[in-house]
């Protein structure tokens, strides 16, 4: 058995050794860890727990005029999470629309080296700043509010998602690409007809992962005034009302779980596992969308 056969295990082991060496250099006082468990229990029992669910009660002002059963929609948690979801959704869609063509250009198995080098440079530049720095930048440029958040997260999505996508495109089998090249398909036709459908599972899971990432980061960029639930989290952190903060964090956790469920269902359309499982209502709808509504729609618009 060669080194290459067990490369992942060897790299992990070497990485672990280097990490142990580095952490020993970084940490000057290991004794500080001893009191951490005690601090955690005090923090949880006295500040975090139980969560203060008043955050899902309607705000005193403006007066809530909706039917009482739905008055939670006037709460800060609802308003904040919906704004965060909107920002994350718009940024993910805009970001993925921009990143997919860039990723196709950045993939070295589809393009000459010089093209992929230039595009990779652009993607690296978009990725080099974290979304919170982009948010600060856009807050300075266009002021407080969701628009700064959307711009910041779109740019970050382009950089991050673009990298994930071109790496997975480079990982696809070369045989369908060769078949396409030998037929004389253009680079555009190969991308649209072979690369995207062949890579659909990865591309969809990456887009949904990016949406989930943007929801989580939407909370962070809200802290610098770029809109969303982060604004409220920041507010209650300043007032040391951690019980309200934990309530918001639980809501975010539930939203992330729901997104994860959607991700699994959506990806099942493109995997052998999904073929053998019974269809859920969600996958049935997605299947109907993918196999009937979408092709018919595309056919309608592509008619000459």
């Amino acid at each position, binding site marked *: 058995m060669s080194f290459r056969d067990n490369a992942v295990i060897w790299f992990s082991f070497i990485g672990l050794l280097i990490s142990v060496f580095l952490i020993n250099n970084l940490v000057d006082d290991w004794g500080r860890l001893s009191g951490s468990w005690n601090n955690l229990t005090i923090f949880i029992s006295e500040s975090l727990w139980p969560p203060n669910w008043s955050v899902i009660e309607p705000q005193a002002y403006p007066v809530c005029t909706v039917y009482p059963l739905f008055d939670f929609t006037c709460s800060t948690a609802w308003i904040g999470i919906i704004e965060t979801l909107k920002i994350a959704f718009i940024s993910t869609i805009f970001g993925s629309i921009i990143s997919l063509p860039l990723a196709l250009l950045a993939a070295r198995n589809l393009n000459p080296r010089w093209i992929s080098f230039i595009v990779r440079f652009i993607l690296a530049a978009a990725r080099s700043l974290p979304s919170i720095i982009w948010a600060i930048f856009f807050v300075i440029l266009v002021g407080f509010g969701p628009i700064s958040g959307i711009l910041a997260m779109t740019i970050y999505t382009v950089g991050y998602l673009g990298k994930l996508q071109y790496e997975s495109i480079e990982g696809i*089998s070369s*045989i*369908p*690409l*060769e*078949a*396409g*090249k*030998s*037929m*004389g*398909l253009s680079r555009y*036709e190969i991308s649209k*007809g*072979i690369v995207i*459908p*062949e890579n*659909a*599972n990865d591309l969809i899971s990456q887009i949904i992962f990016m949406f989930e990432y943007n929801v989580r980061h939407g909370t962070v960029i809200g802290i610098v005034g770029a809109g969303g639930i982060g604004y409220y989290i920041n507010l209650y952190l300043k007032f040391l009302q951690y019980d309200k903060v934990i309530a918001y964090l639980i809501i975010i956790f539930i939203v992330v779980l729901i997104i994860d469920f959607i991700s699994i269902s959506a990806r099942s359309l*493109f995997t*052998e596992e999904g*073929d053998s499982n019974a269809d859920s209502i969600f996958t049935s709808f997605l299947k109907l969308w993918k*196999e009937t509504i979408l092709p018919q729609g595309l056919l309608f618009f*592509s*008619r*000459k």
Partner: protein
Amino acid sequence: MEDENKTPIVQLKDTVIGFNSSKPLVEITNMEIFPGEVVAVTGPSGIGKTTLLRTIAGLVKPISGYIQVCGRNPSQIQRGEVGYIPQRLGLVRHASVLHNVLLGAKTNQKLSNSYFSSKAEKNHSLKTINSLGLSEKTHEPVRRLSGGQQRRVAIARTLSQSPSLIMADEFLSELDEKTINMVLREILDYVRASKAALLVVEHDVSRAKEMADHLLVIDDGRVNPFISETRTILLEAEK
């Protein structure tokens, strides 16, 4: 193999094929394939049969020598002129049978000249799918099909191109006798009717002799091509 009255579809002269000039795989002094001819390549595994096909398809550059496919250098082959069925098929597994066959039809020069090209491409693809007995699987993702059905999809994709040259790498493996007969009939009918050429890699020598006009045997008795000397193609007498 030679016919004075026709222009060869494939012509190789003093061609050396391989990835590394110090370790060539196959050396061909003269090889010509004419319209309507079926040529089967046979020989042990790893000898360079697939590389020969990939070189003719323009996917691998020859080390040296002269290659013309449809009167052109392989790197300048026109859209749809060559249909190549790789050993591992190269299908888009997550897309439907129709999508895969349409990819071939899009390169069909006869169809693309039509005003309603997309409609013509779809109709032509459906017809080809039907002729290979896959009409019930038209909208099924390829990954859900059996190995033999997938092989038929790859053949349908190539036939929908209406190519002048079809190259197939072990395209009859995984098929049962009945399907082999159906597939062979379809592909040979196409070759005869449209005066195309067929170059196949076939391990089963008796079947190769049965379907081919000519048999090319690549063999120097050594299995690993990367450590062996340059080998030559022995051209067996015509059937």
